[in-house]
């Protein structure tokens, strides 16, 4: 029977090959008395010098293959080779106790690794793996063996290891290494990040059973689903070969859509945008062919610190995003705090129903100084690109009018100060409260656009917290109640000639996309990695057909019936 392991699909892809178990047991070592401590110190110093040369080479290699930022980790490794508390402590140990270099190296390194791996901070815990990596490198120089033996691989394989150190990952020969599986690790560990930038399939955190896989065992790694099949049957290999071919083919097809507009099979154009939460997400947005940013959550500017961000600080961030997006539309949402997102330094009173309390635009309207600062920063940034400002959680027209009034006041002040402000900033709102959806016709007169925030809209409509497992079954994006609200919003906006986007998770959902396309949604904003699959789906979907199905869909009484309907129609589209 095939044994099956599951792990985290850290970098997608499918690989089928023999396993190569990486052996990094450089640590087992015993104390031995040496005849001449000075000669032993010399031997240790030589190992350090050799390790330095190796690291310099790996650093250059990484810089060429993955860029300077990724190579920085090796600078940290080089610094370790000069660290007095690490290197000098070993040398003093050899001299003072007359013990062998391997043992002292092991002992000193272990004490640091133990302290670092027990720290609360994940970033500091990861430093333990740097010490392990550098120690392994010095150890193998002392023993005269090549570190990790990765460079010796000369036939196709899938690497199996406890964890891949940064230097292992940097040296992978991608002609032979088709993927890797590790026992430990998370989506954000070094090996995972590097695998994604090298585009090599990786499964991390597959558990202790992973490292028991022996070199030479046939394995299939499905880094789309996060599964590892050990010693698969011929049928399984065959079936996965077909899946791999289809997967690879699809990747190639998707890449072709990178710079194409998003047009349905019958020529209807929509816009695919990305949701971002910080500037770091921009790289991924640009690499995945987004036509704009449909939601920039500004909360990160306010969270994880102990004072409000200044106007200047915010201005710099907004300007940076607008400039990087090179005049593509960027919808920036004003502060959406409260509910489950707290700002301890603001010392807001504890509410018994925070999701129904003073949050988002409600909070901003009650703390006008904070709101005005953000509005000023946004207005100042507006001349650097195509900015659209969006207010979250609007429930009634008065809130929108009040927010617009403040925006107007700040704009006039800036103009008086002689600061350039764009004349074409669109101002819109999130539709995430059922009241806003039901009264969208009034709101449409006062907004330039709507963006439907489905995560909250569904929670408020169903009166169910989707994080609460006992009621999370009520989180049903394709429930008729939700679809009817969405349709009302789109129709109300259309009457006023306004556009409607969606920035909740539903916008990237393959079942919902054809329905939304048929209803006339203009913009779909999703996580960057969903953009190309969504573009491919829309390309083979007829807007006209699905517009014709809307009435039929809305007459079905449950999400399951609706999903079934979509599945049937989508399948017939593909014929």
């Amino acid at each position, binding site marked *: 029977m095939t044994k099956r392991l599951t792990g985290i699909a850290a970098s997608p892809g499918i690989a089928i090959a023999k396993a190569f178990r990486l052996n990094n047991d450089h640590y087992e070592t015993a104390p031995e008395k040496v005849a001449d401590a000075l000669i032993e110190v010399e031997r240790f110093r030589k190992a350090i010098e050799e390790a330095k040369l190796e690291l310099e080479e790996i650093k250059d290699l990484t810089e060429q293959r993955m860029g300077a930022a990724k190579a*920085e980790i090796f*600078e*940290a490794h080089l*610094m*370790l080779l000069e*660290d*007095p*508390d*690490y290197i000098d402590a070993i040398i003093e140990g050899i001299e003072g106790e007359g013990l062998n270099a391997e043992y002292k190296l092991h002992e000193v390194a272990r004490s*640091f690794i133990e*302290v*670092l791996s027990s*720290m*609360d*901070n994940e*970033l*500091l815990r990861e*430093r333990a793996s740097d*010490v392990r990596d550098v120690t392994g490198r010095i150890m193998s120089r002392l023993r005269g063996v090549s570190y990790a033996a990765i460079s010796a691989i000369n036939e196709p394989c899938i690497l199996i290891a406890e964890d891949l150190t940064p230097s292992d990952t940097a040296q992978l020969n991608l002609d032979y290494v088709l993927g890797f599986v590790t026992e430990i690790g998370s989506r954000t560990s070094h090996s995972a990040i590097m695998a994604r930038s090298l585009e090599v399939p990786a499964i991390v955190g597959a558990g202790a059973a992973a490292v028991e896989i022996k070199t030479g065992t046939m394995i299939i790694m499905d880094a789309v689903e996060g599964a590892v099949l050990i010693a698969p049957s011929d049928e399984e290999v065959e079936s996965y070969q077909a899946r791999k071919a289809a997967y690879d083919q699809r990747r190639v097809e998707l890449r072709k859509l990178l710079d194409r507009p998003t047009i349905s099979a019958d020529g209807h154009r929509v816009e695919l945008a990305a949701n971002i939460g910080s500037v770091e997400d921009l790289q991924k947005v640009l690499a995945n062919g987004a036509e704009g940013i449909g939601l920039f959550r500004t909360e990160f500017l306010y969270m*994880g*610190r*102990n004072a409000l961000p200044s106007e200047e600080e915010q201005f710099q961030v907004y300007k940076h995003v607008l400039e990087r997006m090179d005049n593509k539309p960027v919808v920036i949402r004003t502060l959406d705090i409260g509910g489950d997102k707290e700002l301890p330094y603001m010392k807001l009173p504890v509410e018994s129903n925070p999701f129904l309390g003073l949050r988002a635009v409600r909070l901003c309207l009650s703390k006008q100084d904070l709101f005005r600062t953000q509005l000023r920063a946004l207005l100042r940034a507006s001349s650097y690109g195509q900015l659209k400002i969006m207010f979250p959680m609007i429930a009634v027209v008065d809130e929108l009018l009040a927010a617009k009034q403040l925006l107007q006041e700040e704009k006039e002040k800036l103009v008086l100060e002689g600061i350039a402000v764009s004349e074409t900033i669109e101002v819109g709102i999130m539709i995430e409260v059922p009241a806003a959806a039901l009264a969208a016709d009034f709101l449409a007169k006062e907004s330039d656009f709507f963006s439907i925030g489905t995560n909250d809209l569904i929670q408020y409509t169903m009166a169910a917290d989707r994080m609460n497992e006992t009621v999370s079954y009520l989180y049903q994006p394709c429930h008729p109640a939700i679809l009817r609200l969405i349709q009302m919003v789109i129709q109300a906006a259309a009457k006023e000639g306004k556009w409607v986007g969606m920035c909740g998770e539903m916008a990237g959902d393959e079942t919902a996309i054809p329905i939304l396309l048929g209803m006339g949604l203009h913009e779909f904003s999703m996580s960057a990695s969903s953009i190309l699959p969504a573009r491919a789906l829309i390309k083979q979907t007829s807007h006209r057909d699905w517009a014709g199905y809307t009435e039929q869909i809305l007459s079905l009484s449950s999400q399951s019936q609706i999903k079934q309907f979509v599945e049937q129609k989508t399948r017939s589209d593909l014929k």
Partner: protein
Amino acid sequence: MISQTFTVLNPSGFHARPTKVFVQKVGTFPCKVNVIKGEKKVNGKSSLSMLTLGIQQNDEVTLEVDGEQEEQAIKELGALLTYIFEE
């Protein structure tokens, strides 16, 4: 020997990059620099030992400087601890 206490302002605390900047700066001074947080005192010239202090934002950190150029060192290193890590 002189010593002074500073509050770390960097929101992400004191890991790889800030530590590197700090340790490199310490290396430019001839004097001995100890960094103290709570009960623990480490050598400011060792990035590894610095990491084991697990310095976070708002931590009070004391610098103890002894030797040539100590005045200059405490001034510049204190400023680094307080400000530069707001990157």
